[in-house]
């Protein structure tokens, strides 16, 4: 789901940065409020966990692959703002050091995998946290909603940016392809993986009393 450089038109890149900047500022303030001796090592560990979990590329039928993100787990424990900022930091490192996801598309990726996933996952969890399967559903919803953002950003490119001869300038496939491919694969496969990861890790953290539990 990491959109590379060159896939989104400059206008899309500027718009996504404009949308993400104020959100990052607010998120940074929220993170500062939450950082103390107990939370800091845990938030750092969960961010590192998100980084590593994204390295598990899972092949699926149809010749593509994907991975979990780990946003929901942080969102459940520390709220959506902190989670979105942690995932943004992970995405920044991936883009700069590993060329995974672009820099011009960093804001787009952060809006999708960071903010969208975290807020949706957190909302779902807060509505059903008494249920044992809440973390699973929360992880699934988070990654599926973020895949919707990615599919739309990619799918609108051939509509908004074409060369004089009609050839698409950036991502060439429209919504009719991007929505089923990106969202469908996340609903059927990677959402399940994100759900299982969120469920297992949340249980491990609560059972071992690593953290008091939901901060909702």
């Amino acid at each position: 789901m990491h959109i590379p450089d060159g896939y989104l038109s400059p206008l899309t890149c500027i718009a996504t940065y404009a949308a993400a900047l104020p959100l990052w500022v607010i998120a940074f303030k929220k993170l500062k409020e939450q950082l103390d001796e107990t939370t800091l090592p845990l938030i750092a560990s969960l961010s590192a966990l998100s980084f590593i979990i994204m390295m598990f590329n899972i092949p699926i039928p149809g010749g593509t692959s994907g991975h979990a993100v780990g946003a929901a787990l942080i969102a459940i424990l520390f709220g959506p703002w902190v989670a979105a900022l942690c995932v943004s930091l992970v995405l920044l490192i991936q883009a700069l050091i590993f060329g995974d996801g672009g820099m011009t598309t960093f804001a787009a990726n952060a809006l999708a995998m960071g903010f969208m996933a975290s807020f949706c996952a957190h909302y779902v969890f807060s509505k059903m946290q008494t249920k044992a399967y809440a973390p699973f559903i929360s992880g699934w919803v988070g990654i599926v909603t973020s895949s919707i953002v990615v599919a739309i950003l990619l799918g609108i490119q051939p509509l908004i940016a074409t060369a004089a001869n009609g050839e698409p300038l950036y991502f060439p496939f429209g919504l009719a392809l991007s929505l089923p491919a990106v969202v469908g694969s996340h609903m059927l496969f990677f959402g399940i993986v994100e759900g299982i990861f969120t469920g297992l890790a949340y249980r491990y953290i609560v059972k071992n009393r690593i953290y008091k539990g939901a901060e909702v």
Partner: protein
Amino acid sequence: MKKIYYLLAIVLVLAPLGLISEYPAWAEWENEYYQEALGFIPQGIENAFHVKALLPDYTLSGLNDVVAYYLSGLIGIALIFGIFYLLGKKFAR
């Protein structure tokens, strides 16, 4: 608290499982893919600006893929903890 590090360590040890997939992610193809699928490479994709990555795609030339994957994982973890350590020094109560 320490137990969260066990979880992180277990996941890190298993990380090379992520190399099993030969498939690229949807919409993260090499440029040749577009040449084959469309007969051309969209200009914006062909001329895209790219960051010169230290370990492109979690690899390092001359280094075994699994070793490079572990190295990438460790570098990522170190950077994340380093940044949080600095944030903590500056902001934590």
